[in-house]
Each structure stands twice: as C-alpha cells, then as structure tokens.
C-alpha cells in the first residue's frame, strides 16, 4: 500500500506540469558532436546516429511558469524515434528518466541512465528570452544501449 501511494504521488508530480500551453519551451535543432560506436546500427541506416546527425529538439528549463523543478529536453531522430529526458533539479550531471519511443516503435517509460556536462546559455533564461543554447553528454541516447553522445543545440522561444 505504501508503495502504491508513492507511485501515485510521483506519477502525479510528473503529470501535473504537462498541461499543454502552460509550460514555457524553446524548440530548435541539435547536432551530435561526439558518439560512441554503439550509436551506429549494423542493421539499418535509419537507426544510426553519428557525429553530424541532426535532431529536432525541445528544451523546457526548470522553474519557469509551470515547468516544474526539473529541466526537460527531448530529441526526435529522423521523424521516428522520440527521446525525452528529465534532468532532476536541472542538475548539470546525474541520472535522467527517459520517456518516448524507439526506432522500432517500442514504448519506453522511466528508463534511467547517466548524463553529464549539461550547460545552458544563458544559465537562467526568463520566459521571454528569445534564444537559448544547450549542450551536454547523454548515455544510452535514444534508448540505444551503450550509445553515448555529446550534443550541442540552438533554440528559439516558442510563442
């Protein structure tokens, strides 16, 4: 019973900030600046990620409007795989929780892996800051085991 209550509370805290329109987000493109060999697929090019791969990306910094206390960032690869990660407390390094869908269409929820060197410029944007950049290093990127990438991203505020 105690476990069930904990799950419900955590779930609620995750879901509450999700109201579309209440959050402040920036959208843009990210490019891969370094990638481990595991990011490349031997099966299909559509699954491969390497230096120079570009993603659509959305950034939701912590503590703005209804964004909540965590920073969130998401990447879409080639219109098929969607990888959203939640960075607890917006820390520069730590363990993320990921949600989305793999290149195979598999639903993913609450996968955890390390991330590091997350850096936002400006460090604390306001809800009207027009441009933001974001960079970092993510393990098990796009739900690919052993795939670690470094990325750099440029964003514009979504009206």
């Amino acid at each position, binding site marked *: 019973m105690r476990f*069930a209550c*904990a*799950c*419900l509370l*955590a*779930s609620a805290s*995750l*879901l509450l*900030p*999700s*109201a*579309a*329109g*209440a*959050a402040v*987000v920036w*959208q843009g493109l990210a490019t891969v600046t370094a990638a481990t060999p595991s990011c490349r697929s031997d*099966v*299909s090019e*559509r699954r491969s990620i390497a230096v120079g791969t570009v993603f*659509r990306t*959305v950034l*939701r910094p912590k503590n703005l409007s209804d964004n909540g206390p965590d920073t*969130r*960032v*998401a990447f*879409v690869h080639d*219109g*098929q*795989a*969607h990888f*959203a990660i*939640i960075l*607890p*407390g917006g*820390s520069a390094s*730590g*363990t*993320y*929780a990921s*949600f*989305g*869908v*793999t*290149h*195979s*269409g*598999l*639903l*993913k*929820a*609450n*996968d*955890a892996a390390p991330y590091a060197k997350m850096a936002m410029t400006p460090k604390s944007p306001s809800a009207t800051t027009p441009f933001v950049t974001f960079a970092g290093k993510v393990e098990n990127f796009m*739900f*690919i085991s052993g795939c670690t990438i470094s990325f750099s991203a440029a964003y514009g505020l979504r009206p």
Partner: protein
Amino acid sequence: MLRPFLFALPFAALAASGAEAETVFVGDSLVLSTTTTCGTSIAAGETARLTYRPAGAKLGNGGDSYLAYVANRSSFTMTIAGAVFGSGQNYAGQNVSSYLGVATIVGGVVGWQQSPAKIGPDTETIELTATLANYLTIKGCTVTIRSNLIQVK
C-alpha cells in the same frame, strides 16, 4: 545518486527491448477526422510518421504490439499486450507532448481496417485505416488515421 522517477505504468512494454530480428513497418499517416474533444491538439489533414510493430513470434516481435505516432516534436505510442491491433481491443498509450509533458491513458481501438488481414515476415506493405479513442491521452478524442506502411529494417 538521484533516484529515477517512479511511475505507475500498466505497460508490459517496459521489459521489451529492441531485438535485431524484428518486423517493423513505417508509414506517412494522414488524419482523416477528429472529434471536437480533440480541440486544437490534432486536426484532419495533419500528417505524422506511423510505426507499427505487430506481435508475432514468426515476425521476431514477441507477444506485444506497438503503434507509434511520431510528429515533429511529440509522440503518442500505443501498445497492446499479447495481441495484434484490431477492432475492439484496448491499448495502453503514452503521450510525450511538444511541451514535454508525459501522460498515459487506456484507450480503445474503435476501428481497424488492415490489408492484408494477416501480416507475415514477407509482407511488404500494409494499407491501414484506424480509428482510435482517447488519442493523445485526451479522453473523448477519437481520431481516424490512414496510412500505407512499408516494412523497413
């Protein structure tokens, strides 16, 4: 050490992994109709990438089916445990919105017209028209989509 988020998910999908031997179809989907409850979240005429991974041991896909609707900056992924998608089934769905909200729901497959009726490892394309309730985790939002899917590696 920060703990990952706890999340009460009804999905058997959590244990699934990206096996190499699998049968996956992708298609460009067109939204044919939506109900008023969908509001501005989705509208007729919109397109997005659809990925279908039907259940089947012969397909290398295991026992669960997945249907993913991936738009420019959001995704809605549905799964049915132990069956392929078909009319009258219920799915468990997860939406990751373009505002990076995460939500889950159980919805119904109201209609599922698929040709060929049975999918095998050699099936090249699937002509699909599907009507799905509670789309994008919006209760009462029923969407009809059409897609011609092609098998990909």
